């Protein structure tokens, strides 16, 4: 269920490197499922600088509020504006229509610190 072409963080974010070297990121199906129905997503403005593992926004479900952390350092070049009015996209398509940000990476070597799909699945099992 976790697409093999993505990279994963321990905070349950995913990241996809595009052909132009930018990265798209969102939260995993596991994270969306744990949160339950997402009703509010707050994302940083385009142009913001994100630090690795720093808080970059908030996601709120019917039940609870969670912080979003950036798995890499970079500058926001695009955000998924559809999530403002349709936060449920995070539940219905966490790996595609529920994407959150597109960033320009500050340091591509940080990608090596992320997990493969297989490693992420082992990580999830170890958390149970």
């Amino acid at each position, binding site marked *: 269920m976790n697409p093999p072409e993505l990279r994963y963080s321990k905070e349950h974010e995913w990241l996809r490197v595009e052909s132009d070297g930018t990265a798209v990121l969102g939260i995993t199906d596991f994270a969306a499922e744990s949160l*339950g*129905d997402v*009703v*509010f997503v707050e994302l940083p403005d385009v142009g913001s600088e994100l630090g690795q593992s720093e808080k970059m926004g*908030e996601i*709120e479900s*019917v*039940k609870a*509020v969670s912080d979003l952390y950036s798995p890499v350092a970079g500058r926001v070049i695009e955000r998924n504006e559809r999530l403002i009015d349709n936060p*449920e996209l995070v*539940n219905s398509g966490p790996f595609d229509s529920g994407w959150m940000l597109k960033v320009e990476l500050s340091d591509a070597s940080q990608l090596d610190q992320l997990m493969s799909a297989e490693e992420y699945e082992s990580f999830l099992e170890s958390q149970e």
Partner: protein
Amino acid sequence: MTVSDELRRTPLFETHVSLGGRMVPFAGWEMPIQYSSILEEARAVRSKAGLFDVSHMGRVDFRGADAASVLDRSLSVSVPGLRIGRARYNIICDEAGGIIDDCIVYRRDEQRFLLIPNSANTGAVLEWVSRWVSSADDVQIDEVTTDLAMIAHQGPEAASMLSDLTPADIASMRPFAAVETEVGGVPTLLARTGYTGEDGFELILPSDAAPDIWRALMDRGAVPCGLGARDVLRLEAGLLLHGNDMDRSTNPYEAGLERFVNPDREGYTAGEALRRARDDGVSRRMVGFNMVGRGIARHGYAITHGSEQIGEVTSGSHSPTLDRSIGLGYVPTGFSAEGSRVQIDVRGRSVEAEVTALPFYSRKRSA
């Protein structure tokens, strides 16, 4: 100490697990918070019907010639005046007028009553009511929580789903009617009551029969719902939750529950304090508010006016039925009028909110 060892399970526990319910600790019980999605479950209750396991709530049986007068000492509305076959919403206050719990009382017979306190408060309610019983009273008080299960079947289609399962004349049952009947061949106290703001029923029945009746109602199209949907639905309906929206530090006049209080009865233990609250007025009031800005108010967030904190949010959620963010909280009476503007401190962000009339949602009534 491991908490999980002490969690109690209702007779429907296995049913919840087999249906994929996500089980969480709640007031000492292991209960389903949701099955599929809180929003989908809430919508099912508003559009057709949902099922809730409310077996964790307390059930206390009162019998005897003095049962009515014993209850009348502690409950906020006259108990002797309650007719057989009727249920009534009541508040239980301490001598200072603080709210120990809210509950439903059913009159099953001239000398027999059933009281349904909240699960977390069952012990406190029993202790409080028993305090005012003397040796001269003819009353037998028994907690029967585990002998009986309780299922809430709520939604516009609940009545039609139930009709072929029971000989009771469903159509003639008005809200808060309670009849001794059978459902699916099982002896049941069937009441037209609930906590969702929707038409519906609550079934009190022997524990061992609960899973079969639950399945029978599911077969007729009722959707299993968890505590998450229940909390959203009761908030939309403007129904308070004890422990969140009221407790012993609040009285019924502050909580906006004065229509459920008659403090002028002889022998009512909270009468004096509540008469004072009524006659002197209160300085703060429970209000409902709509968020004007983006954000969701949560229990414990500050309500502010300018830079000053004036109150606190007691409940808040996104409302799936109304598609907006709603909440409850206490504010000084000067801010309690409809249309008053206040702000909610949403994790450091000041978000505009407007006081509105309760309930947020009321169902369309046919006829």
